[in-house]
């Protein structure tokens, strides 16, 4: 076991390379979805997290399978990083019977309790109280579980954010509110929609610890999440992390990008891409050679596309499924 790059979670070189591979697979997963969408294979819309892979991987990878997470409409990265089956996610988004929700959920409603994925939510801010409830269960049942609640920057202007964070703070619940500030809520710049510089400042009003970090630095995300996990596990109450990042693609498939400049997007893509930055770091520190990197990357890409092809062959839901699971037994 070699640990070339210092990090608080004490991840060795192999573990870090594995995280880079996870980031690649999320990117390839979403690029494959884009292709499938263009080919008319996907019914409905989807929200891609391309450009935000470090926040998902650097945080969710530190959780145990039994820890819970909730996510948003832009959940593919979180869901995969938490261990949700890529095959079942492809199937779900393709509307197949074998999907995570049998085709009933689609891209915005991916869940898998077997890996602690409590579900992604189509209502902005909808996940804050639910994740807080999972943290309440952990506390009441004394299970040592931690919850990560992912949200975007725009969601912090919802009332549910305020109510849930206040509750979590007074009850000192083991929950991390992880805000991916990708600068825009749909077309609205967060700077036009809030009067504060840092969203983490909001934690102060709840008596909660808060921090803003560069979200496209994988190691920074790992260290911050590691500290937050220790903090919430020690019973000191929740933590709010604001991770600065950027979505390379539009809000959803309907976005024509009128609200931001090509130069701005290009700057983030060229200089602050989380995957490129991680690759550069790992190459410089000798975790990988360029040849190995390219070889592994290509192999992973082929593998992801094969998974999509396999899901595409699956049957669509039967009509009877319309009426199942409206109510629980």
């Amino acid at each position, binding site marked *: 076991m070699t640990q070339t790059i210092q990090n608080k979670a004490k991840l060795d070189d192999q573990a870090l390379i594995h995280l880079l591979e996870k980031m690649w697979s999320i990117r390839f997963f979403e690029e494959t979805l884009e292709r499938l969408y263009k080919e008319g294979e996907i019914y409905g819309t989807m929200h891609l997290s391309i450009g935000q892979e470090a926040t998902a991987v650097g945080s969710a990878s530190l959780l145990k399978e039994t820890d*819970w997470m*909730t996510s948003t409409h832009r959940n593919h990265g979180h869901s995969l990083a938490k261990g949700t089956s890529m095959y079942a996610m492809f199937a779900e988004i393709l509307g197949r019977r074998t999907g*995570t*929700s*049998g085709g*009933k*959920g689609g891209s915005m*409603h991916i*869940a*898998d*309790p077997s890996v602690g994925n*409590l*579900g992604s*939510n*189509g*209502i902005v801010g*909808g996940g*804050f*109280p*639910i*994740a*807080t*409830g*999972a*943290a*309440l*269960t*952990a506390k*009441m*049942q004394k299970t040592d579980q931690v919850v990560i609640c992912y949200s975007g920057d725009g969601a912090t202007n919802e*009332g*549910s954010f305020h*109510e*849930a964070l*206040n*509750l979590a703070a*007074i009850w000192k619940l083991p929950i991390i509110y992880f805000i991916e500030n990708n600068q825009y809520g749909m077309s609205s710049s967060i700077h036009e929609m809030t009067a504060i510089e840092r969203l983490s400042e909001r934690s102060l009003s709840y008596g909660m610890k808060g921090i803003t970090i560069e979200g496209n630095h994988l190691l920074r995300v790992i260290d911050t999440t590691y500290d937050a996990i220790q903090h919430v596990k020690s019973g000191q109450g929740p933590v709010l992390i604001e991770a600065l990042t950027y979505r390379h693609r539009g809000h959803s498939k309907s976005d024509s990008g009128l609200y931001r400049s090509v130069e701005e997007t290009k700057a983030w893509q060229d200089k602050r891409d989380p995957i490129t930055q991680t690759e550069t770091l790992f190459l410089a520190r000798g975790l990988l050679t360029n040849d190995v990197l390219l070889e592994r990357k290509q192999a992973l890409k082929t593998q992801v596309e094969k998974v999509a092809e396999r899901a595409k062959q699956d049957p669509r839901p039967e009509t009877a499924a319309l009426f*199942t*699971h*409206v*109510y*629980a*037994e």
Partner: protein
Amino acid sequence: MKREISYLHAINEALDEALKEDPAVFLMGEDIGIYGGGFGATRGLERKYGRERVRSTPISESAITGVAVGAAMTGLRPVIELQFSDFITIAMDQLVNQAAKIHYMYDGKFSVPLVMRMAAGAGTGAAAQHSQSLENWMAHIPGLKVVQPATPSDAKGLLHAAIADNNPVIFYEHKLCYSMVEEVPAGKYVIPLGKAEVKASGTDVTVIATGVMVHRALAAAVQLRHQGISVEVVDPRTLVPLDEKTILNSVRKTKRVMIVTEAVKNSGFGAELAAIIAESEIGLTLLTPIKRLGGAFTPIPCAQELETKAIPQEGTIVTTIMEMFK
């Protein structure tokens, strides 16, 4: 020996028994500790079960509901109280978009066994924002169950059924029923959801009444007996699931039906009941058109003489039925 207790006491007893029986059950709501909740339904329970399981919250209806959803998804069985059913509007996203849909949207991977208890209805001068009957909103949402007990013994048995149910159940307690007293069995018993009850047998007309209207219909039935009209009173008890069979059996027998709800008549649950009867095979066998009584299409006013006029009363039920026999 007969043991008579109030509707409020019956609810308190069911909560007490459920907390005692199942460690996964816990209560959450505003002022439900020492204060005993808005109307006293949880009085004494914090002292008995502690502040972890009888959990007083900030004034945050959305978080109370959403936290209950998350807790229910992960293994607990929350019973939450909203002080007035009007406040459900603040919790609506968590109830309608989350609680009701999670089981379906994730194809059965999670269930949401939560009960939302609330004091509903008018008749206390609480005015427009503390007196509504919005149960029809809830009955319209696939995934929710809706319970409206009228009597102490129904309240206790139905609350036990609601807590045992693996779905979100909205439990409407009528404020005017809280002080009503009748014989209630000691210990736990369950009245299954989806079973209507014939509260009074009759042969000439069926009155389908919900909530406190059950009592007004029963009182009207006594008056009408002296006029020679035999009234059957049917209480659905749960709007979802609805016991259509008991309702249709009664109307098939009497061939006349009046529906009375406290909720505003327009687009109310009474319309649903009327439609079910009209669409059934007995729709064309009725001797008189289906009659509905409901709240006036106004917000609930405060002044007593106005409030009384906004809601069906015993007298209006009597007059309306007598007109059906002219």
